[in-house]
């Protein structure tokens, strides 16, 4: 059973429920008759910025349209608050009745919360309680060994298809921690690299991790980028540009930036909701991975992206 400390509960209760972003809209109305009702409606909404009525029949109201609060998120928050209170154990009916929700709606919300591990269901009683993941928000999203276990078949498939060695990396302590490694399937002598640390800025795996983690890329900007080969990116602006590109194309590549003669390609592994938890990629001789112009080969990029998507799907399915 999960114990929730008073401090954690306080943190939980203080969550600011809605902070929706605003965007500008301008609306033009052509009927004087409709004005009073329309005006009342808009002025009630918090986002009215300006309203001008002309002597003619045209009225223009400019307002920062705040998208309305998302009901299901409000309801999910209510479910969590309810579970954080009192006994902390409630059945589906109790939860639905307490919040005035239809049984089906409450069930859908609970199943979704269960999927993201914010809620757990007691297997013997069927009752719900707060999930352990809530207490570790911000520490770790996915166990490294769990990721290896879930991705092992897809990593094998990628190695078989691409003919290159495969690595799966997660961020650890300012570097890429290799959590899984599959040999290049050519029966040459190779050394298992699980547990090795690779530089973030000079490998495809690392660039993926940097591209999708604002804190990590900010930290990288503050640090000096070590030059490993004559092609290593050492200027922060150049790295920033590359990371923008990575986000736009959904994968990262690198040629001779880590080791002369070697290249790598990687793509992000995500958990439900889109959070990037790791990267999967291949590495090998630059002439095998890149075309004559030095760009990663499209076929290999596709294979890496497909493997990343397959691992992502397996994380969704089994959660």
């Amino acid at each position: 059973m999960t114990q929730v400390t008073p401090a954690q509960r306080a943190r939980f209760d203080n969550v600011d429920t809605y902070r929706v972003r605003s965007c500008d809209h301008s609306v033009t109305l052509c009927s004087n008759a409709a004005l009073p009702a329309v005006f009342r409606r808009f002025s009630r909404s918090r986002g009215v910025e300006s309203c001008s009525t002309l002597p003619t029949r045209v009225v223009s109201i400019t307002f920062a349209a705040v998208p309305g609060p998302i009901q299901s998120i409000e309801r999910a928050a209510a479910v969590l608050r309810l579970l954080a209170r009192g006994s902390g154990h409630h059945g589906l009916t109790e939860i639905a009745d307490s919040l005035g929700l239809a049984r089906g709606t409450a069930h859908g919300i609970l199943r979704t919360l269960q999927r993201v591990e914010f809620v757990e269901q007691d297997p013997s009683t069927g009752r719900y309680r707060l999930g352990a993941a809530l207490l570790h928000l911000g520490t770790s999203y996915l166990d490294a060994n769990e990721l290896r276990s879930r991705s092992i078949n897809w990593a094998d498939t990628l190695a078989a298809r691409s003919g290159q060695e495969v690595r799966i990396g997660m961020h650890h302590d300012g570097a890429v921690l290799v959590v899984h490694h599959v040999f290049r399937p050519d029966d040459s002598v190779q050394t298992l690299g699980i547990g090795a640390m690779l530089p973030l800025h000079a490998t495809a795996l690392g660039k993926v991790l940097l591209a999708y983690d604002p804190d990590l890329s900010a930290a990288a900007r503050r640090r000096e980028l070590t030059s490993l080969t004559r092609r290593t990116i050492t200027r922060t602006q150049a790295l920033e540009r590359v990371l923008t590109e990575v986000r736009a194309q959904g994968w990262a590549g690198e040629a001779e930036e880590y080791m002369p003669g070697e290249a790598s390609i990687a793509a992000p592994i995500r958990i439900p909701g889109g959070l990037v938890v790791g990267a999967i990629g291949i590495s090998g001789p630059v002439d095998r991975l890149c075309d004559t112009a030095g760009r990663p080969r499209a076929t290999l990029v596709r294979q890496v992206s497909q493997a990343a998507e397959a691992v992502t799907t397996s994380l969704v399915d089994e959660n």
Partner: protein
Amino acid sequence: MAIDQGTTSTRCIVFDQNARLVAVAQREHRQYHPRPGWVEQDAVEIWRNVDRIMPQALRQAGITADQVVALGITNQRETFVLWDRHTGVPVGRAIVWEDIRTEELVATLEKQPGIEEVRERCGLPLATYFSAPSLRWMLDNVAGLRSKAERGDVLFGTMDTWLIWNLTGGVNGGLHVTDVTNASRTMLMNLSTRQWDPMLLDFFGVPSAILPEIRPSTEISGKTTRVVPGISITAALGDQHAALFGQTCFEKGSIKGTYGTGGFLLMNTGTELVRSKHGLLTTIGYQIGGEPAYALEGSIAVAGSLVQWFRDNLGLIHSAPEIETLARTVKDNGGCYIVPAFSGLFAPHWLAQARGLVVGLTSYINKGHLARAVLEATGWQTREVVDAMNADLGAPTPVLKVDGGMTADHLLMQFIADVLDIPVMRPLVAETVSLGAAYAAGLAAGYWPDLEGLRRNWHLAARWNPVMDARHREDEYANWKRAVELTFAWARSSPST
């Protein structure tokens, strides 16, 4: 194409010529537990699953039946079903290898004259695990069954036989055959002649009329007339034997270890029938053509299931792979050992009364040490089996080829390499059971030229080299052995024995 009829699910997998996986379709089937210790499955449900997954796999691969070179069948071993020859309707459910309803019967049979001879002929110790005792139980307990069986109105089959009979026409001329590896797990086959043995049939009271014809693994020679007609069924192998074949353990002395819920180690002993003096089972590895490859088998009853127990019964981890994370929070076992003799000890001890224990507890021990002890238990049990295999064969094996879900546990694989003091190697295709069946089928159909051609398809995905200091290894092994001895002592002192 391979059909892998496993204990919990049935899968249909399509491979290409480079042994790369092209399509997978899978369906689980129900487990029935009508009484404590009884485990049954519905053979009709399994057959229906095959009916669904074969077309599904073809669709997924984007191919038609005529593009399937051959079909190989591999299956959970020892599980069998009896059915009416004229209607195809099963007599009750299939009795699964895990079923222990014959505990008493086995104890009675154990005292009968000729028991030594039984072991000599079939290579197996008398246990609830194998088909013959359960078959005898059915003949004794289902009204009217024995006379029907004697008249030949009822057919017996392990799951390979059941599926082949149905696929090749069922009541309309279905082939009633099995392969040597499956037959070698019934306790009814003579290992030397590789035919049903009259003495064994007599000992278990099994009428020969119900038994299928025993064929070499690659001489099944059937053609499907149902589900997807026109596919040649050319091979059948028990699942662990298929894994041995899929791992291309073709040389004498090569060993494969499959790590799932339990651990299954098989060593190819070549054309020599080795009778174990160290508590292993003698079985047939596979038979390609005239000459069989014999094998020694050592099973670890509790491997991955110990991790599941740690997760579900102790609740110290959320998912099985997290055991490695927890184990890595400490640098060693802190002097703690776990012997998971949950339902006795299997190979090489064979002590049904032994019960598990945790030893070496001090106030220093935390859950990290326990997690290490859990993983190490699988390592040491592997060492015991491999030691027994080496002793029986008289030569040390150079490497261990591994497969199964637990090969994702990096710490465990390194530990196995360390305690065996030989490299542990994982192949690129994790589906070695299905691959083995597909290999045997493709070999029979001429899709692959020879064993050498298959060996070229085997690619190394990972290799763990031993790094443990020899002195430390032997000290730890001595501690493990002392812990195992304590389980014997516990069994002896139990008031019920």
